[in-house]
């Protein structure tokens, strides 16, 4: 706890807040001195999870979405939590191209993007109770490798 910096944001599940959520998380991430690429990765992953809460979990009704971010050393961790409809089959939901809303032009690539841009993702969900997406990313990996190699 001593060396962990933490923040939580709670906001209405309105599409206009998608931008707010990813900028707030990126502002918190700044203290790790991330590259532009790392910031873009984190913003994209959070945008995916938040969009899913808005359209899938709450079906466009306005309820709360909660994001918890923590920084320990160079590890950035983020949780995105909703109390929406939940996911029946998590394994299937995470398959690339799988979507339950093709009529809204969803690409089914949300979880695939989260997996691609973060180091680790885990999804906890129960039908009718909501979903918790936890993601992690180590910031400055390239710099580390570079430093080690240059010794």
């Amino acid at each position, binding site marked *: 706890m001593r060396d962990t910096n933490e923040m939580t944001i709670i906001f209405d599940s309105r599409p206009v807040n*998608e*931008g707010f959520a990813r900028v707030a998380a990126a502002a918190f991430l700044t203290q790790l001195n991330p590259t532009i690429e790392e910031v873009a990765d984190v913003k994209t992953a959070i945008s995916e999870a938040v969009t899913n809460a808005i*359209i899938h979990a709450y079906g466009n009704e306005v309820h709360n979405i909660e994001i918890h971010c923590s920084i320990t050393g160079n590890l950035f961790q983020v949780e995105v939590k909703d109390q929406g409809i939940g996911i029946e089959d998590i394994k299937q939901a995470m398959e690339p191209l799988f979507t339950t809303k093709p009529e809204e*032009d969803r*690409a089914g*690539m949300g979880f695939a993007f989260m997996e691609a841009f973060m180091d680790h993702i885990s999804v906890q969900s129960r039908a009718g109770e909501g979903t918790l997406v936890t993601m992690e990313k180590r910031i400055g990996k390239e710099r580390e490798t570079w430093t080690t190699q240059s010794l």
Partner: protein
Amino acid sequence: MNYKIQENYLTVYLPKEVDHYNAEEMRKEADLLITHNHIRYLIFDFGETEFCDSSGIGVIMGRYRLLNLLGGEVWAVHVGARMRKILTLSGVLNIMKIYEEERA
């Protein structure tokens, strides 16, 4: 949405940030323009785009399906490194070609 129509070409200038919030309006407006103006070539211009998530990919895939039915094509221009990564990752480069200005 910023766009330009020349004959049966529609160029859509994508905004700085493409997410679900602004993708909604884009797909509706693009579909109207495509069907009302006999569009056969749709060009997504990413010149201004700094952020794009999978909602943007959904817009591209949906427009591809429509253009494909109409016998048309979808192209991308001004694709930077980040956008190229996202387009590659999502597999849309199999249905949409990138127009490389350097080679033109």
